[in-house]
Structure formats: structure tokens, C-alpha cells
């Protein structure tokens, strides 16, 4: 009787302690997130000005702005998405609409999963040995974009596949029933309805590309000049930030660049999130 009561009381104490720890962990995690963002913004934003965004760096970045690195980031990211999006969406369409589950689809899914787990430094090594050296593209927009494209491909495939699977099956029946070919069905019914999810995936991939350093530094290079062609080397914001910080060139400029970098990636993520929420709502309304 008493033993039971004590055990009961003990369990309640244990529960209270455990829950307190869990609450603390959750709040601490949120606090860390807030701290990182606010820390960079607080120390970086005062050094951000219109001139900083629109002028070229001087003395390796000690003075001046970051315009070429902004352009570089945009060009490299757009290049990567332009390559990876058609491939990724195509692969997702194939997996969902053109085949049954089979050893082939399992192999493709395994490939995508394995690729998703490859660390970015390996992509950097690979891009360097394959695109830069073997295919003689040099440190260039082309090498960088191709490397990034392979890196973001799994994300685009996975999100596109998930989005396509939420398109209700009766739409497919109706479309086929009205004499659509498979490809017509895909383009007229499946893709338009999966579009929000697909775009979300692309935006997440953009976020990953913008923040990437290891895979970019060995494939696109670190040149501070404005890129002029597909084979020009360039430096992205993330690479620039890394070099400013690690070589101690200018802390002030590093904070400012970091602030721009974090604002960009946060915006991209918030946008993606907002699209997800909207897509989920639309989906609920329909079903």
C-alpha cells in the first residue's frame, strides 16, 4: 500500500523533472535559432548600405561592397536550378506516372537517397576532378552549376514526387477517360496541380545552393571579378563570407555579408514554408 503510493509519487516526480527538461530543450533550441539570426543581423546590418550591395569589393574585400558575389550567387543558383529542375521533375513524373514499383524504381530511389547523403565536400572534390579537370571546364559558372545541380537533384525529386502523389487519382481517371494520352494527362492535370509543391522543392534547393560553400569553392573558384561568360570563375556570397572570416580580412564586412546571406536564406525558407501551408490548405479544401 505505502510502497505503491511511494512508487506513484516517484513516478510523478520523475514526470515533472522529465517534462521540465523537455520544455527547456525545446525553448533552448528556439533560443539558439533566434540567437544566431539576431546576432548576425545585429552586428551585420549596421554595415549594410545600398553602396555595399551595389559596388565591387576593393582590397580583397577589405573595402567596398559585394556586388559581384551577389551576381555570382544568383547566376550559379539559377544555373543549377535550370539543370536540376527539369531532370528532377522528369524523374519524379517517371517514378509516379510511368511505371509501377519495380527493381528499377527502387534503384532510382536508392540512388536519390544515397546522393542526398553525400557530403558537400565530396561534391566539391568530384566537381573539381570531373568538371574542372577531366572535362576541362576550369573553375567556372558551368562547373559550379553542374556540381550544385547534382547536389540539389535529390531534393527536387523527393518534393516533386510527394507533390505529384497528392494529386487526386480521379483527375487521372477523368483525363484518361476523356482521351488524353499519358503525357497530356501529366501536363494538363498532374503538373498544374502539383505545382505549389514542386515550386516549394525548387525554393528549398535554391536555399541550399545559396548557402553552399564546400561544393562551390573548388568548382566555381574564388575570383572576385564580375563573371562575363559561362566559363568565367566567380565567387558566391557564401564563399566570400567564408574567406573574409577565415582569413581575417575584415570582420565588419564579414558580418555585413553574413547578414545578407542569412536574410536571403531565411527569406527563401519562409517563402517555401508559406507555399507549403497554402498547398496543404488547398489540398484540404479539395478533398
Amino acid at each position, binding site marked *: 500500500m505505502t510502497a505503491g503510493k511511494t512508487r506513484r509519487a516517484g513516478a510523478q516526480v520523475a514526470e515533472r523533472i522529465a517534462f521540465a527538461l523537455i520544455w527547456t530543450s525545446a525553448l533552448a533550441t528556439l533560443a539558439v535559432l533566434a540567437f544566431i539570426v539576431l546576432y548576425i543581423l545585429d552586428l551585420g546590418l549596421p554595415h549594410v548600405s545600398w553602396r555595399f550591395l551595389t559596388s565591387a569589393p576593393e582590397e580583397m574585400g577589405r573595402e567596398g561592397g559585394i556586388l559581384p558575389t551577389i551576381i555570382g550567387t544568383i547566376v550559379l543558383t539559377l544555373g543549377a536550378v535550370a539543370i536540376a529542375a527539369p531532370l528532377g521533375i522528369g524523374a519524379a513524373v517517371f517514378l509516379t506516372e510511368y511505371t509501377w514499383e519495380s527493381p528499377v524504381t527502387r534503384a532510382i530511389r536508392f540512388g536519390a537517397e544515397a546522393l542526398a547523403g553525400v557530403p558537400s565536400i565530396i561534391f566539391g*572534390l568530384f566537381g573539381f576532378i570531373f568538371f574542372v579537370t577531366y572535362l576541362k571546364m576550369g573553375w567556372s559558372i558551368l562547373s559550379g552549376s553542374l556540381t550544385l545541380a547534382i547536389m540539389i537533384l535529390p531534393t527536387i525529386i523527393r518534393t516533386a514526387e510527394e507533390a505529384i502523389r497528392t494529386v487526386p487519382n480521379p483527375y487521372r481517371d477523368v483525363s484518361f477517360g476523356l482521351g488524353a494520352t499519358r503525357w497530356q494527362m501529366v501536363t494538363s492535370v498532374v503538373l498544374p496541380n502539383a505545382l505549389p509543391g514542386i515550386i516549394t522543392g525548387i525554393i528549398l534547393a535554391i536555399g541550399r545552393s545559396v548557402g553552399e560553400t564546400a561544393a562551390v569553392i573548388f568548382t566555381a573558384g574564388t575570383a572576385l571579378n564580375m563573371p562575363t561568360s559561362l566559363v568565367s570563375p566567380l565567387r558566391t556570397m557564401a564563399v566570400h563570407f567564408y574567406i573574409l572570416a577565415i582569413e581575417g580580412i575584415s570582420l565588419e564586412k564579414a558580418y555585413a555579408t553574413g547578414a545578407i546571406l542569412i536574410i536571403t536564406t531565411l527569406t527563401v525558407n519562409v517563402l517555401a514554408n508559406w507555399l507549403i501551408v497554402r498547398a496543404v490548405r488547398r489540398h484540404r479544401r479539395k478533398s
Partner: protein
Amino acid sequence: MEALRERLIGRALLVVACSVILALAIITYFIFQAGLPIIVRLGLDDFLFNTRWQPAEEGGSFGIGAMVLGSLWVTLGALVVGVPLGLAVAVFSAELAPEWLSTLIRPAIQLLAGIPSVIYGFVGLMVLVPWVRTHLGGPGLSVLTAAIVLGIMILPNIISISEDSLRAVPAAYREGALALGATRWQTIWGVLIPAARSGIGASVILGMGRALGETMAVIMMIGNSLQVPRSLLDPATTVTSNIGLEMAYASGEHREALFATGVVLFAFIMVLNLAANAFSRRRLQA
């Protein structure tokens, strides 16, 4: 005509989908082709366990033992920090948090995942390194610093997959345990977490892969010393950070040795992927 076009489109999509496998194959081939010869020349155990890395010397000495140790320490440390914290947040979000708070946590965790690793490294360098130096001693640039920041960086991986698998536990388990008079905590600890263990296991392995593979953030915090670390407060170097630092100027045998380091990393990551895959397959079957 129409039928022919349809068949062509189908074929084209198959080819496109196989590009993933092709990419993986080319990556594997080129990394191994560039790095394997020197491993064969030196012998795998000498390359792995020898702690003397002196690429500048005549003839050079290429042993990655110190880096392997550094990577292991940092990765283990990241897991020690990240797993309990991540699991706690997952439990919080899946079980304890009021609806509004848990719908807030998911996007917040995604933001955490979206922050570039160089930012983590930089904040670690500017904030945590000085703190460790003044309060715990040592140079601040250390295994401990890198491990803590990496632990935070892998939180999103751990949280999202663990939370999903906690939520996937059938409601009957929970109700059954509560009906038998278990407290909520006893239910979580004794029933839910064991039921979700495959997913949690997979999340830990994926987090481990991320910590092991992280490069830039580690370079910024670990001190990049080629010494074998004697304590958590010592600087060290890892497999990845050494590649990241030296690739920029390496050539000849030195570059080959860096690719060989990449081979070791790549092989290890693939093993981890297979393990995570096995875990999640078990989760699907369960």
C-alpha cells in the same frame, strides 16, 4: 504517330530518372579513381592509422590517423549534444506542445536547417570559441566547440524524422498505456520511444552522416591542428576540414592523398546510408 511520341516520352523520362544513378556512379568512379591508387600504394592500415601527415616533406608522409580520430571525436560529441536535445524537441513537438506551438516549431526547425553552415561556423568562432577559452581553458578552437555547434546543426535531421516516427505510433499504444495507469512520461519513455525506435535510429544515423561530412563550419572552429587531440579542449583536425583546407593548393601526390581521404569519407558515408536505409525499411515493415 501519337503512340510513337508517347513511347518516346516514356523512354526519355526513364533516361532522365536514371540520371540519378548515373550521377552516383560517375561520382563514385571519379573519386575512387583519383584516390584509390595511393591507398593501395601505402596500404589501407598505414593510410588510416598512421598519424603522420606531412605532405610538404620530400617524399611526403600521408597518414590520416589524426584526422580520423578528430572526425570520430567531433562526430561522437555532436551526437552526445544533438541526440538528447533533438529527441527532447521531437517529443515536445509530437506529444507535449500545444497545437499552436508545435505548428510554430516545425517551420522554426526548417529555418535552422536552412541556415548556411558557414554561418554556424562563424557564430561558433565569434561566440563559442572565446567563451570556451575563458571559462574552460585551452585555445577555444577545439573538439568541444566544433562538437557543440555540429550538435546544433544536426538537430533538424534528428527532430524531423524522430517526430514523424513518434507521430506515426498508433494511438492505441498511447491509450493502452495510459489506461493501464502509466503517467504520460512513463507512456512516452516506456511505450512511444521504443515503438518509434527505428525512425529515431535512422535519424541518428543521418545526423551522424551530416556531422561527419560537415566541412566549412568545422574548419572555422576546430583549430586545424594535425596533433592527435588529448582532451576535448585541444584543437584537432578532421577528415573533411583537412580536405577543405589543403585542396586549394595541393598538387601531385598530396592531392591524390586528399582524394584518398575523400574515398574513406565517401565509403563511410555510404555505409551509414545503407544502415539508415535498413532502419527505415524496418520502420516501414513494422
